[in-house]
Structures are given as structure tokens and as C-alpha cells.
């Protein structure tokens, strides 16, 4: 192929010259060019290398179905591999390079693979590496080498420097495609008052208008009309998928320029009432010898390059066709002054265009030319489907039309399988009950005027023309068979799958089209079978003696064209990947030296280090202070739900295992709730503020889930209960004041609250004022010390915390974080998230005594069913190392002293170094629990970290088991 620029015509701006490079050489093109047309205009013939055999490849098409001109665009961290040159608009400074070749596409040492073709036939990897002794291991070894030799382009390993965003839209009608049918549909719908969005994947609107002589002017006029009618027109926007509820996913290419710090791509989620698919058709190749040679291209693409880009793809052309569409291509070539011979597989056809030599009953058999196209051997097609060479036609351009296949991918995304149609020899969209209509070439309607009529009808929802064979029906020809020496006849140029690969796979038993596809990798390249699919199915059908309809087609799934993962992520990257929740005390914590940690979405203080302290130093110091003096901790992330109404007490009674109806006003109670299946769900305290007002606290992790569950119960199961729920988690801040000097600390800042044991006993709640703010104080303890929790509206939290801190500091108090909080609860044997893992029952956790026998509650029936009382269940125990100098590890498996069998007898859920006991301690879930293991030794198996440690099983209540400190 020796392309060149025509002197006139085309939708290019000759006053806008653009400089670009390909493999280091500088070239010039024009505004309006694609990268493919610009390369072709500069006479560049080889632009890529085949996937497996590294054979030279040129431009094969003018669209997203491109199988040859697949390039890497951009450099450094902006490098994007596998860009199809025909759909990449040219821009000033574009840097491109060939891929899958070394050192360059013109001299590629990988061509050796071509000689080794028989080793790389269908199923090569499976046969060589799987199912044989050592095969999988060998595969691991060789995979890297093979992948490099037979691969696609390499992506940059640097983080994606481009920006993406997501947008949403609604409309009455979404039209996909801007060819004659799409434009007509949009016009008709807009004329009927519909709000229309027209999406076109190409950077220029017009579809097949742009390939037709004189079509550009028609397209421009039609588009002007749409703009005037208020249609939203979106070029460079690919509808990549259709989803439930008539939702379309689209990617808009906003900018190519990597230097521009704007948005590169925008993902659109469009919710139209109706969709019209005017997605056109793709011209199919023919399987003949060496049909991948640079210079062989789709016939229709030749017209596109001539008329749209004013580029002649060659100087001497042969057209091989099975249908009428290529006759217009011949006329276009004659107009451009290029001599052309047309060979038509059919015995007769339309009249020959002026100046075109037509040979009927003739097919291409193999191309000649060792590197690029020099000619084509042609010959008559016998009745048995075999052809023999009769002569050679010299040419540097071979335009092939094996018929057209409608683009039915988007309908297929919705489920309906494409249905074979014998009139057009192609698959049409399966029928759907959704408001999705297909028109124009996508519906198998190819004549221009019929396309327009079809589009108009689809735009208004009326019946349009149906597919017709016409006076000279197309010939269903897919494969040119020859006797004698085997020829390489490619059907999927991107994955280098040949006709013989499909036949081989069929012989080896891959008779289902879905299996054959996976075995040969036919249609699994980045074009998703846009060119190879029909021909592959046809060859499968022929090989197995079935019809194409019987053979069926594979399922098309989104995306229609490859899309950047970055575009799907949009702005949801890095810190925007998920929401961040900050407590009202967040800034105060930071200002006072907190090191933060993530607890779900929350940022919580982890520990408050003094200078030079490690996390272990800090949390041990914080624990000691809480046990000796007083500590303050931000507990605002706990879930807080107001439960109000005349039936609130009854409701809580049904939700918790223990009784709440008789909880006196001014008191709090610890409660546990179960799931319907009897497993422990959540725990927390409930404060009774008045007859009808309760404040429920939940764990941080289950705050949202408990709220949703309570709403479900009230709305679906117990609608007669008069209860109102309000989440106040975000409105209230919580501060734990814990330690022997907690009362002294509070006394210093509250003037109107009697904190004596008599007036304010354990589990009491009181209203008070601190630093001018109204607060609720509850005397509850998670640490096992005398302790209070102070709740205040978020806006006053800083002032209250500061007042408490000013009072605590002179008492040698500390601020403490989640590490010390967790350690203190382990010393007390309080269960938390790592024990409430959805698999533990009340009995497993040693809380069976909490369950009321006087009332029913959620999970009551199921908590005692068979299996839930199995003595072999995992039950809560404490664990300590036999050698007090050893540390414990959470997650370690526990089993007998000598044996670890399977998952052992249990595992350690949480550990801490205990300053009070002078050694590490942990909580664990062990089969048989204390009853079976108390006082006995086990081994903690942890081969990946510290190895094995001898441990002793103890009661989980390590510290102050009688609770004298928190009551006292």
C-alpha cells in the first residue's frame, strides 16, 4: 500500500497542518485527520505486527473494528496502548509508536513465530502447559516469556495522571449513531417535541454519510437541522453498554491533549425513556490466503479514506466482493484516478461503473508480496466451494467486501440473543419488550433511502422498512477453500486466529461456539469479534455440518469498545474513593497530638504519643493512667438512636435479649440484640430519659445496620407499635471519662450535678451543664474503672472536651485512643467486633445468663435450637502465654500442645500487652470453651510470624473479675 493525499476534497482542514510522530519519525497531517488517515497520507504502510506470528500489518478499516493499526499513543506516564489508529483524531504533537514488535514494526525479530506456526495453533497453551505432569509449573515459568513475545501494547506502570469525571443525564430519547438512520431518527423525534440526545462514537458526525461521495454536505446540513431543533449532540461519545431500566453507559472523550489539566474522559449515565440504535453495520472480511497483508482492507473503508480524508490508500486497486456495496467503492476509486479491477464472486451483479473492469464468478485466493501487497492470485469459484488460481492481478490495494453484519451488540447486552437472518446473511437483534428500537444498517437495512425511512420510523415509534435482498442478492461466502498447500487465512487479525484454527478446534471436540471461541481465542481481542465473529461461526457451521442459525452466536457483553478503568472510577480515587467521617472532636484530637486510625469510614484517635513514644509505649502509658487516675477518650463514633413513643419500652423489650420495659427513668442498661437466626448481632447501652424517651447506643460498625433493622421491624413486622426512631449519631459527641479520678474530674466542671455514689450510682444517667453546654452524663464503664460517658451536641463538643481536659490534666490524667480502649476491654473480657463476628451465640460468649426467660425476643427460639448448644461450639476464653516473656498474636490458631489438625480447636481473636498482669493476654474462641480447657495448655500456632507459643487457657475476665472498681 502506497497511500497519498488527494489534492482536493475531504473533511480535513488543509489550513491546519499538524505535526506528529510515528516510531520516532516526524510526519504531517491536517485537522480532521485520524491517525490512520494521516499515516496513510504519508505513505506509511506497515503500522503494526500480528499478535502471535508478528506478521506485518497495515490499516484494515476506518473504525473501531480495526485489527491491524493498533498503536501506542503518548509517552511516559501518559502512554496508552492498543489505540485503534482509525478512531484516534490527529492532534498537534501526537506521539505514536508501533507495538508488539522489536526493535520496530518494520524490522521485527519476532517474525520467527511465523515459522513456528504449527506450535502456536489453536489451544497451544492448554495443550502444552495444562493437564500434564509439571505443566502448571512450567506455565508459570514460561508465561512471562510467551506473553512478551505474543502480546499487546504495554500500559504505563505509573499512576494515571489524567482526570476523569462522571455525569448524569435524562432524556426522552437516546439515539446511538449519527449516520443517515440516526440523524433521521433524531430529527423525527425532535420534531415530535421529544428531548433527544444523539451520541456518536466518532469524532466527526455523519456515519456512512462520510464514506459516500457527496455525503459530507448532506450530513452537515442534517446536523445543522438537529442543532436548530435543540437536539443534544455528543460526538466522541461511545455508548459502551445498556443496562436495566433503559440506562445507557457512555464514555465521552473530552480531550486528547495530555498537557491539558482538564478532564480527559467523562462517564455518562443516561436514563432515557426510549432508545434508538442506529449503530450501523460492519463489513466482513473473506478468509483467503495471506489476507492480513498490508494493503488489504475493508472495501467500505477505502471510500471513507477517499471521501472523508481525501487520502488514496493505494495507486492500483483490486476489489473483491460478494455483494453490491463495493460497486460504489469502485466508482469512488475511478473518480480519484485510481485504476481498479472488481472481482465479484457472484455469477452476475449490477452494471459495472464506468471505467471499472468487472470479473464475475471470481474470488481472491491468496495475496502476493513478501512484505506488503504486490498482487492477488484470483480464480473461478467452483460449485464445490473450492477455487483454483487462474491469474494474478497486480495491485497495492485490495479492497474486500464479504458482506455486512449489523452491530447488534447493545441489544445483546440486554439479554436477547441475536437471531440469524437468511435474507441479509447476518444476525439481527433479538426481540425485546424494552423500549429499544433498531434502525438502518443495524437492522439490516442497507439502501440509503431505506435507512433514512427506517430512522424516521424508529424516531417516532412507527413501523419502518424491513430487510430486503434486492435485485442482486449478496452471496453468503466466508471462506475461499483451495486444494493443495495450506494457506494462512486469517479470520481474527487481532488475535491471529485462522480458519484452520477454528476447524482444528471443532475436530478436537469444541463444537459449541462458546467453547470454540475460548479455545481459539476467536473474538476475544479488543475488538470483541467485530470482524471475525460471523466468519468464525460460518466456518464452525461448515465444519460440523450445521447451519449458522443452528450453530448460534456468542453473547456480546459490555463494553462495546474498550474503556479506561480510570473513566469508570471518575473522581472516586485516592481520598475520594470512599467517604471520610470525622467526629465533632476531630480537630481537637489532632490539635492535642492524636495519631489517627481508620475505623470503618471513621477517623478515630488511635493513641496520643508523647515525644519519642512508639504506639506500644503510648497505649501502655494510657492504660496505666486510666487504671491509676483518669483518661478521656472520644467515643463519638458509637451509633446513637433515639427510640421514642408510648410503645418504645415494649419495642426495646422485643429487640434485646434482656428486659427493658421496667428500666427506671434515669437509668441505663447494657443490652445485647440477636439476629432472627439466634446469633449475636450487636450490643450497647440504652438510657431511659423519660417514660417515652430512650437513647440507644450501638457499636460503631453496626450503627447504620441497627437503624435499618429497627426501621424494618417497625414498618414490616410490628406496624402497630407507636415508636419513632431518629438517628442522632452525627448530632451528638461522646466523651468517655474513665478511671478512679473520673468523678473528681467531672466534679471540677459540673456545678449542678451531684456525682456522689448515692446520688449517681453505677448505670445512672443525669442531665448537667459543662462549659455552658447542656450534657447528658451516664455512669457506664467499658474499661472496668469507675467511668462516665458525657454526651453533648456536636457544636459544643470542643468546649466540653477542653473543660474536661483542663480538669483531668492536674490529676495526672491522659487522653487515650482506640488502642488503649481495646486493650482495657480485653483485660475485662468484654466482647467487641472481633468476637461478635456473626457466628457466635450468647452462650458462646458466656452471656447466656442475660437472656430473659420472662419474655420473648428476636432470636429467642433459634438461639437454643439443636447445634447452637453443641458442646463442641467455639466459646469465649482467655489466653495467656506460659512463658510470660512471649507475646501473643491475634489470628493465631489454637490446638493441642502437640498437633495442629486442619483449623485446630479455635483461634485468638484479640490480644494486648497487659501492664496490670505483666504479660500478654488475649481473648480466644475455642471448641468446648472453659469447661473443656480451663487451666490447660494449648499451642498458639502462628507459623508466618513468631512461630508457635505455649499458652494457658483462662477465664476471659483477667482484671477485677468481680467489677469492684467500677461500682466502687
Amino acid at each position, binding site marked *: 500500500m502506497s497511500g497519498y493525499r488527494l489534492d482536493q476534497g475531504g473533511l480535513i482542514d488543509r489550513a491546519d497542518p499538524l505535526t506528529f510522530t510515528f516510531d520516532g519519525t516526524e510526519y504531517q497531517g491536517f485537522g480532521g485527520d485520524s491517525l490512520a488517515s494521516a499515516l496513510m497520507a504519508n505513505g506509511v504502510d506497515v503500522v503494526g505486527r500480528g499478535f502471535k506470528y508478528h506478521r506485518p500489518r497495515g490499516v484494515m478499516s476506518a473504525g473501531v473494528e480495526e485489527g491491524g493499526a493498533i498503536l501506542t499513543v503518548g509517552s511516559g506516564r501518559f502512554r496508552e496502548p492498543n489505540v485503534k489508529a482509525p478512531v484516534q483524531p490527529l492532534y498537534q504533537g501526537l506521539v505514536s509508536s508501533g507495538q508488539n514488535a522489536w526493535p520496530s514494526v518494520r524490522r521485527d525479530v519476532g517474525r520467527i513465530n511465523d515459522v513456528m506456526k504449527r506450535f502456536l495453533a489453536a489451544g497451544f497453551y492448554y495443550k502444552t502447559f495444562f493437564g500434564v505432569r509439571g505443566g502448571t509449573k512450567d506455565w508459570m515459568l514460561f508465561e512471562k516469556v510467551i506473553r512478551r513475545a505474543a502480546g499487546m501494547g504495554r500500559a504505563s506502570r505509573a499512576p494515571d495522571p489524567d482526570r476523569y469525571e462522571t455525569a448524569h443525564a435524562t432524556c426522552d430519547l437516546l439515539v446511538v449513531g449519527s449516520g443517515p438512520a440516526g440523524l433521521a431518527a433524531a430529527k423525527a423525534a425532535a420534531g415530535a417535541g421529544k428531548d433527544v440526545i444523539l451520541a456518536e462514537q466518532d469524532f466527526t458526525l455523519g456515519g456512512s454519510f462520510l464514506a459516500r461521495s457527496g455525503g459530507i454536505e448532506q450530513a452537515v446540513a442534517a446536523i445543522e437541522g438537529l442543532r436548530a431543533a435543540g437536539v443534544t449532540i455528543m460526538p466522541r461519545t461511545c455508548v459502551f453498554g445498556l*443496562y*436495566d*431500566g433503559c*440506562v445507557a453507559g457512555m464514555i465521552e472523550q473530552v480531550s486528547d491533549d495530555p498537557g491539558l489539566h482538564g478532564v480527559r474522559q467523562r462517564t455518562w*449515565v443516561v*436514563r432515557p425513556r426510549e432508545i434508538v440504535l442506529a449503530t450501523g453495520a460492519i463489513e466482513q472480511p473473506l478468509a483467503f490466503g495471506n489476507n492480513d497483508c498490508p494493503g488489504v482492507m475493508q472495501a467500505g473503508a477505502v471510500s471513507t479514506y477517499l471521501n472523508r480524508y481525501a487520502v488514496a490508500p493505494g495507486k492500483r486497486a483490486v476489489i473483491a466482493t460478494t455483494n453490491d456495496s463495493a460497486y460504489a467503492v469502485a466508482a469512488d476509486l475511478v473518480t480519484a484516478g485510481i485504476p481498479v479491477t472488481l472481482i465479484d464472486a457472484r455469477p452476475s451483479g449490477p452494471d459495472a461503473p464506468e471505467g471499472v473492469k468487472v470479473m464475475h464468478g471470481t474470488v481472491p485466493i491468496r495475496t502476493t508480496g513478501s512484505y506488503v501487497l504486490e498482487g492477488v492470485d484470483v480464480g473461478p469459484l467452483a460449485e464445490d466451494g473450492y477455487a483454483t488460481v487462474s491469474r494474478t492481478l497486480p495491485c497495492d490495494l485490495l479492497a474486500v467486501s464479504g458482506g455486512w453484519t449489523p452491530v447488534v451488540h447493545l441489544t445483546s447486552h440486554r*439479554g436477547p440473543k441475536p437471531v440469524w437472518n437468511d435474507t441479509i446473511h447476518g444476525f439481527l437483534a433479538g426481540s425485546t*419488550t424494552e423500549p429499544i428500537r433498531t434502525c438502518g444498517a443495524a437492522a439490516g437495512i442497507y439502501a440509503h433511502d431505506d435507512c433514512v425511512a427506517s430512522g424516521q420510523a424508529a424516531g417516532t415509534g412507527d413501523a419502518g422498512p424491513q430487510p430486503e435482498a434486492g435485485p442482486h442478492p449478496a452471496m453468503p461466502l466466508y471462506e475461499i477453500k483451495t486444494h493443495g498447500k495450506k494457506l494462512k487465512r486469517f479470520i481474527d487479525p487481532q488475535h491471529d486466529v485462522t480458519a484452520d484454527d477454528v476447524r482444528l478446534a471443532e475436530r478436537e471436540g469444541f463444537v459449541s461456539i462458546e467453547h470454540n471461541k475460548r479455545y481459539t481465542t476467536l473474538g476475544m481481542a479488543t475488538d470483541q469479534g467485530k470482524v471475525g465473529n460471523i466468519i468464525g461461526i460460518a466456518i464452525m457451521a461448515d465444519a460440523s455440518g450445521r447451519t449458522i442459525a443452528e450453530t448460534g452466536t456468542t453473547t456480546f457483553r459490555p463494553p462495546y469498545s474498550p474503556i479506561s478503568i480510570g473513566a469508570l472510577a471518575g473522581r472516586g480515587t485516592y481520598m475520594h474513593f470512599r467517604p471520610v467521617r470525622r467526629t465533632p472532636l476531630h480537630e481537637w484530637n489532632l490539635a492535642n497530638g492524636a495519631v489517627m486510625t481508620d475505623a470503618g469510614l471513621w477517623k478515630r484517635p488511635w493513641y496520643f504519643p508523647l515525644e519519642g513514644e512508639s504506639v506500644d509505649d503510648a497505649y501502655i502509658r494510657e492504660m496505666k493512667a486510666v487504671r491509676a487516675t483518669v483518661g478521656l477518650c472520644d467515643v463519638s463514633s458509637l451509633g446513637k438512636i433515639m427510640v421514642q413513643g408510648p410503645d418504645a419500652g415494649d419495642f426495646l423489650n*422485643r429487640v434485646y435479649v434482656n428486659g427493658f420495659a421496667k428500666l427506671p427513668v434515669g437509668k441505663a442498661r447494657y443490652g445485647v440484640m440477636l439476629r*432472627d*437466626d439466634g446469633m449475636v448481632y450487636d450490643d450497647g447501652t440504652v438510657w431511659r430519659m423519660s417514660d417515652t424517651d430512650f437513647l440507644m447506643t450501638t457499636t460503631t460498625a453496626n450503627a447504620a445496620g441497627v437503624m*435499618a433493622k429497627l*426501621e*424494618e421491624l*417497625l*414498618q*414490616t*413486622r410490628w*406496624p402497630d407499635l407507636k415508636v419513632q426512631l431518629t438517628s442522632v449519631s452525627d448530632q451528638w459527641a461522646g466523651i468517655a471519662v474513665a478511671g478512679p479520678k473520673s468523678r473528681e474530674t467531672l466534679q471540677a466542671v459540673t456545678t449542678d450535678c451531684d456525682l456522689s455514689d448515692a446520688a449517681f450510682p453505677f448505670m445512672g444517667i443525669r442531665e448537667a451543664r459543662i462549659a455552658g453546654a447542656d450534657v447528658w452524663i451516664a455512669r457506664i464503664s467499658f474499661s472496668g474503672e469507675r467511668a462516665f460517658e458525657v454526651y453533648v451536641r456536636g457544636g459544643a463538643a470542643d468546649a466540653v472536651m477542653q473543660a474536661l481536659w483542663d480538669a483531668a490534666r492536674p490529676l495526672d490524667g491522659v487522653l487515650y485512643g482506640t488502642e488503649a480502649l481495646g486493650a482495657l476491654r480485653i483485660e475485662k473480657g468484654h466482647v467487641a467486633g472481633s468476637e461478635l463476628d456473626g457466628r457466635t451465640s450468647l452462650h458462646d460468649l458466656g452471656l447466656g445468663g442475660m437472656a430473659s426467660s420472662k419474655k*420473648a*425476643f*428476636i432470636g*429467642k*427460639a*433459634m438461639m*437454643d*435450637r439443636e447445634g447452637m448448644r453443641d458442646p463442641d461450639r467455639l466459646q469465649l476464653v482467655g489466653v495467656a502465654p506460659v512463658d510470660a516473656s512471649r507475646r501473643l498474636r491475634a489470628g493465631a490458631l489454637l490446638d493441642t500442645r502437640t498437633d495442629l489438625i486442619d483449623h485446630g480447636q479455635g483461634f485468638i481473636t484479640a490480644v494486648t500487652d497487659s501492664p496490670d498482669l505483666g504479660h500478654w493476654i488475649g481473648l480466644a474462641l475455642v471448641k468446648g470453651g472453659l469447661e473443656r480447657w480451663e487451666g490447660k495448655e494449648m499451642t498458639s500456632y502462628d507459623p508466618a510470624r513468631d512461630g508457635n507459643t505455649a499458652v494457658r487457657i483462662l477465664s476471659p475476665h483477667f482484671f477485677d473479675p468481680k467489677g469492684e472498681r467500677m461500682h466502687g
Partner: protein
Amino acid sequence: MIRITCPFCGERDHSEFSYGGDATVAYPALDASVEDWNEAVYLRSNPRGPHKEYWHHLNGCRAWLIVERDTLTHEVGKVEFAHPGLRNAVRTSV
């Protein structure tokens, strides 16, 4: 992307909702037998076609809804409040 017409909020994307399980299950009384509870908790049919499901308008009005959804096509039919009082109020006002 399924769209659900909440009787209170109007037509919204399913991303505002959270699926809440089989709405045809009749939960027994809290003091019912373990057999009845076992049936309600574990013994579920897996129908192909139209089905009644609970959906919670989590990021909307927080109403629990009974949604008729075709498990094969994802087509959404009638949507009503799960709360019988609200449901009847809507029915009588239409």
C-alpha cells in the same frame, strides 16, 4: 440499573435503596416454635419470574417498600409501602 418508584419520593435509582429480602415470608410470633422460626429464616423459595421483595429507601425517605420485581428480567412492577397503615392510606387516596 433498576429504577424504583417510591410512593413517597417518586422514581429513583436502585443505588438509593437497599435490598431487604423476601417479602412473602410471614414471620411467626416471637414466642412461636423453633420449627416455625426455622421455616421463616431458612426455608425460602428461589422463584424465576415475578416476586415480591422488600427494599429499603435507605438514602431517601427510609421507608420499607414491597417491590414487585421479575427476577429474570429485573422489570419492576407495583411498589407499595410495607407499613400497612401507609399502604392503605395511599390506596384510599388514589
